[in-house]
Each structure stands twice: as C-alpha cells, then as structure tokens.
C-alpha cells in the first residue's frame, strides 16, 4: 500500500520495521550491558582506560553497530509517533507541513549524532 507508507517509513514493510526495532533493541541492550560491565569492573577510570577500551577494533565495531541501531530504532519510533499524533484531526490543514518539518528535524538530529559518533569512535 504505497499510499500509507508515503515518504518515510524505514523499510516500507511493517514486518521489517517491527523486526528491526526489536533486533536493534537487543543490540542496544547488549551494548549497554557491555559498557556498564566495563564501568563496574574498572577501578581506576581514567581517560586513558576509556580510550584503551573503546579504541579496540571489537569495541569500535560494536559501538558503530550501537549507534546505527540507535538511529534506526529512533527513526522508526519517532516516525510512528509523528504519524500517530501529527494529523489533520488535531493540527488542521497544516498537519502535513508540520509533520514534514518534524520528520526533517528528526532526520537531521539523527544524522548529526551518527556522524559525530562515528567520527569520535574511529578517531580514537
């Protein structure tokens, strides 16, 4: 149904979106555990220790995965929220324009975060 997917759903498939959201949630949960674990077992938390930990190739890849997962997860979620609430029923005829602005804002923020994070992790 092209009509309902219009511009912006991530995959245009409800099932794929649904799966991506759940898989990315698992990635983020694992990543959180991993980082929390590191913080807990490390006695002397210095900048050098952090650089050392996040600078390993394994962690660089894992962090990249986590950042991309955050972006995908957030986009699906924010897109859904936008299509639920920003509707002509509540916002009148300007709803479409408003939603476009909102979605553009989301894309921009997510893009900035991803770029910034990648730059950070790969320049360590």
């Amino acid at each position, binding site marked *: 149904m092209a009509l*309902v*997917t219009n511009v912006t759903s991530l995959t*245009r498939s409800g099932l794929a*979106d649904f*799966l991506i959201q759940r898989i990315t949630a698992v990635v983020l949960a694992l990543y959180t555990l991993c980082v929390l674990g590191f913080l807990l077992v490390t006695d002397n938390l210095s900048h050098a220790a952090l650089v050392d930990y996040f600078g390993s190739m394994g962690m660089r890849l894992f962090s990249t995965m986590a950042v991309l997962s955050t972006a995908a997860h957030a986009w699906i979620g924010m897109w859904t929220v936008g*299509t639920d609430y920003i509707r002509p029923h509540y916002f009148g005829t300007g709803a479409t324009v408003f939603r476009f602005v909102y979605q553009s804002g989301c894309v921009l923020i997510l893009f900035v975060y991803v770029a910034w994070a990648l730059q950070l992790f790969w320049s360590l």
Partner: protein
Amino acid sequence: MQVSVYRYNPDVDEVPQMRDMSVDLPEGKDLMVLDVLELLKGQDPTLSYRRSCREGVCGSDGINMNGKNGLACITPVSEVVKRGKLVLRPLPGLPVVRDLVVDMTQFYRQFEKVQPYLINDQPPPAQERLQSPEQRAELDGLYECILCACCSTACPSFWWNPDKFIGPAGLLQAYRFLADSRDSATAERLSKLDDPFSVFRCRGIMNCVSVCPKGLNPTRAIGKIRSMLLHQGT
C-alpha cells in the same frame, strides 16, 4: 437515578452537550442499560440510539457507558453505574451523527479491506468441503464477532489512524479467514497486511480484549497474524 446523556442533533444544536435526565428504576430489578435508554426515550422521544435484538447478538447498541464501551442491552446498570450516576456517550473516535449514533463508515471500510469472505479457487465439490473438528476449532473465538465496533473504538491506535490501521475488529476477521482450512488465499491476504499501518500499529494495549462483549481476543489474533507474516517472510 441520574443519567447524563450525550446529546447532539445537527438540525438544532450548534455543539454537542451532556444533558442530565432522571429515571425511576423499578424496585428489585437490575435493568440493562438499554432498558434505561428505552425509559429515557419514553420521556423524550427525540433521544436517538441504535438497537435491535436486545440480546447482544446484533451488535447495534454499542455505546460508551461510564467510560467503558459495551453493548447497552447486555450491560446491567449495576455493573457500570458510578456514585449513583450513569454517563452515556457515543462510541469514541467516530464522527457523531446524532446523540448516541455514530457514523461507522470508517469502521466498515476497514472491515471490507481485509476481504472478509472465503477465497478458494478450486471448484467446489458436490457436497460440502470437508473440515475436521480440529480445523473448525481454529475458527472459534473469531467467527462470533458481531461488528459492534466496541473494540476498535476503544483502541487508541484506531483513534489516531482510523483510515490506515485496520483495527481489532477487522484484524480479527482477517485472521478468521487466514485460519480457515478452506481458504486458499493466505499469501495474498498476508501481503496486503504487510505495511507499517494495517497490522503493526497494534501496540498490544488490549483495550479491545477488555471491552469485547462477546469475550473475544483480537490481540491474540493480531499476534497470530504477525507470526504468520514472520513465517512467510523467513
């Protein structure tokens, strides 16, 4: 008893309003909400609502009673009344035509979208198609739907996207045909459901389950559709 009723007649009212009415209930008898409506209509014939079978089978008199959707004819007053007051409103989320009557066009449109009829391309046999009692049991809890719209109009996802999310009632029927051993259009049906709205706007809130006057479980049916989509996709 005090009854507060949602009143709106587009011919005369600018805006809808809640109007207080009072009825004398007969002693020692727990009336159904529909009986109360009939008493109110006796006082004021202009009060409009749908009703027919008065036994919970036709699905005409779905309304919102003290905040909860249900069928007026099988809901005892004692079950819904709060602090001696009965508050009656039309089903939420659909345009009001008049008083407790809502425009159900959108609800029916979603129902029609799921192709709610058996599709089987094979020529039918001379007698009935065979179906084992176990296969038939798959339809229990699905075919009994009376299209009263209590579930869909209690569903926030349906409120937000009544034009795109099929809603619990329609999805229950979608699964009724997916689950029928005699139906041969499974793949076609599933492919029509795999967009981000039709099925996947269900967030498992389960209002539909809590209000269904027939005790059906649309959320479970939606879960089954999801897993069928998953199996088909992999």
